[in-house]
C-alpha cells in the first residue's frame, strides 16, 4: 500500500503489522452539519490507536463510521485490504469489529455471563432447528464458547460477579463487563469509546492495565477514544487528533503533544 505498511517492532517488543483498517477521505454530514470533514487515517495491525479531541470534535462519529452505525456520505473504508461496502452495524460486527459505547450499552436484565456469551454469537454456527433440540453440534458449541468466555472472565478478573444481573453492578464494573463482551468476540479490531469516562483514578489504572494486557497478550488491534490526555499518551502507539470535524494532528504521542494546532485546540484558541 505505502511505505508505512511495513511491520516494525515497538520499544516494548510488540510487533506492529501492516494496515488493518484504512479510512480514506471520510465525510459525514447530519443535514447541513459536517460532523467529519474529509478525514483520512489508518489503523495498523497490533497497535493501540487513539482518537482524541475536544468535545464535539467528531470522535464518536468517527467510531460510529468504523462500526457501521453511521454511513459516511463520502469516502471509502478499507478493512484488511478490501473496500468495505455500505453495511449494517451487525454485519460489521460479524466481520470481526467489536466495540463498547460511551454510555455503556449492556443487556441490563441479563447476567454478566449471559452478556459476555452474546459476544460469542457469531462464533456459534448451529442452525435454528438443531439448537431448538440442543443436540450434537449445538451442545458442543455452547460448551466450547462457554470455555472461551470463562477465559475472558478470568482475564478481566470478574469471576465474582459472573451470575450477577448487570443492572445491579456499579459503573466501573459495567464498563469492564462491556469490554469483556467485546473481547469475547475475538475481534480483529476492538473499538473503545471513552473506556475510562467517569472512572476514579484507581478504576482508570485498572482499565489501562487491561487495555494494555489485551493488546499485548492477544495481539488485538485497539482503537480508542479518550479524554484523559495522560492516559492516552501512556497507552497509545499513535494518535489522531480531531477538532470541529477536521483532523489536525496524526502521529506518535510525542509528535502530537508538540503540535501547535493541537495545543491551540485544547487550550481553546479562537477559530478563524
Amino acid at each position, binding site marked *: 500500500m505505502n511505505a508505512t505498511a511495513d511491520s516494525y517492532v515497538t520499544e516494548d517488543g510488540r510487533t506492529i503489522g501492516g494496515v488493518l483498517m484504512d479510512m480514506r477521505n471520510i465525510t459525514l454530514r447530519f443535514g447541513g452539519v459536517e460532523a467529519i470533514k474529509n478525514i483520512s487515517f489508518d489503523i495498523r495491525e497490533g497497535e493501540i490507536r487513539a482518537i482524541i479531541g475536544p468535545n464535539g470534535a467528531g470522535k464518536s462519529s468517527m467510531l460510529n463510521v468504523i462500526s457501521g452505525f453511521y454511513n459516511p456520505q463520502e469516502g471509502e473504508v478499507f478493512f484488511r485490504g478490501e473496500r468495505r461496502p455500505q453495511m449494517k452495524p*451487525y454485519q460489521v460486527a460479524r466481520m470481526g469489529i467489536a466495540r463498547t459505547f460511551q454510555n455503556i450499552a449492556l443487556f441490563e*436484565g441479563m447476567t454478566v455471563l*449471559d452478556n459476555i456469551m452474546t459476544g460469542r454469537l457469531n462464533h456459534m454456527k448451529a442452525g*435454528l432447528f438443531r*439448537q*431448538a433440540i440442543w443436540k450434537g453440534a449445538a451442545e458442543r458449541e455452547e460448551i466450547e464458547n462457554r470455555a472461551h468466555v470463562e477465559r475472558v472472565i478470568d482475564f478481566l478478573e470478574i469471576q465474582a460477579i459472573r451470575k450477577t444481573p448487570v443492572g445491579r453492578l456499579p459503573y466501573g464494573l459495567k464498563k469492564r463487563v462491556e469490554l469483556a463482551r467485546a473481547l469475547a468476540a475475538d475481534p480483529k479490531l476492538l473499538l473503545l469509546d471513552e473506556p475510562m469516562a467517569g472512572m476514579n483514578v484507581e478504576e482508570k489504572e485498572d482499565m489501562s492495565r487491561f487495555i494494555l494486557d489485551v493488546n499485548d497478550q492477544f495481539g488485538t488491534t485497539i482503537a480508542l477514544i479518550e479524554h484523559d490526555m495522560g492516559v492516552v499518551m501512556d497507552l497509545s502507539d499513535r494518535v489522531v487528533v480531531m477538532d470541529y470535524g477536521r483532523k489536525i494532528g496524526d502521529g506518535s504521542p510525542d509528535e502530537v503533544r508538540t503540535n501547535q494546532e493541537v495545543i491551540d485546540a485544547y487550550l481553546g484558541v479562537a477559530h478563524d
Partner: protein
Amino acid sequence: MSTDFLYLVEVLINGLMAGVMYSLVALGFVLIFKASGIFNYAQGVMALFAALTLAGVMEGQVPFAHLINAVFGTEIHHFGWHVPALLAILLTVGVMVIFAWAVQRFVFRHLVGQEPIILFMATIGLAYFLEGVGDLMWGSDIKTLALGLPQGGSRWIEDMTAGMGGDDFYGFFIDKLDMVATVVAIILVASLIAFSQYTKHGRAMRAVADDHQAALSVGISLNFIWILVWSLAGFVALVAGIMWGAKSGVQFSLSLIALKALPVLMLGGFTSIPGAIVGGLIIGVGEKLFEFSVGPLIGGATENWFAYVLALVVLVFRPQGLFGEKIIERV
C-alpha cells in the same frame, strides 16, 4: 370429606384448566411485547387465522377458492384429498412463518423507532387485515378441527373420585380437552423457556429485548430476531387456536379470545412469561370461584366481568403487574 368441599375442589381444578387456556393466548402477546415493545392486538386474530388454515389444509380446501372462481369462472372448492393432521400442522407453521416475515417486511420494518401507540395502531390494522384474508382464503363457514383430541368429561376420573363424597357426589367432572391443553401448555412453556435461556437465538432474543444498540454491536440482526419472534408468536397462536378451536369450533368469534388475554396480561405483567402463566391461572381460578361462591347471590354471569375488575384492582396497587419489570426512574 364434605360434598361442598369436594365441589369447591372441582371448581378449583376446572378454574386452573380454564386459566391455562387464557395463558396460551397471553403467551403470544408477551413474546412479541418483550422483544419489540409492540402490543400485538392481532394476536387473537392470528390464533383464528392459524386455526382456519389448519382446518382448511386438513380438509383439502382450495385457498382463495371464492376469488379464483369469481375471476376464472371455475367451480373449484376442494382438492379432493385430506391432509393428515401432523403434516397439516407443519404446513400451518410454515404459513405462520411466512406471515411473520411479511409483517416484518411490509409493516414494522417501516415503523422502526415510532411511538408505541403508532405500533399499536398498526397491529389493529393488521388484525382486521388478517381477519379479511382469513375470510377470503378459507371462507366464513364454521369449521371443526378433527384432530382427534379427546373431548368431554373424563369417565375415569369421575369413577375414581366418586367414592370420596356422599351419595349425592358423582365424582369430579374434568374435561379431557382441558387436560390435554394443560399438558400441551406445560410442554410449550418449558420449551420456550429452555429455548430462550440456553440457545444462541434465545440469548439473541433476550438481547434484542434489552438493548437494540448493544445487540447490533455484537452482530445480531434485529430484523431476523423480529421475524423469529413473530414466528414464535404465530406458533403459540396456532397452539391456542387448536385448543380453543377444538373447544368451541373454528369460527370468527375466536379472535375475541384476545380480549380474555388482556386482564391476564395486566395481572401478570406484559413482559413476563411466568407472569402470563400465573396470571392466567389466577384469573381462571378466581373467575370460577367467584361465580361459584358469590355468583348465586348477585344473579350470576360474573365470569363476564370478574377478570377485568380483578385486573383493575391489581393495576391500582401494582401498575407493572405481579411479575412485570418495575419501572424505576432515576432523576
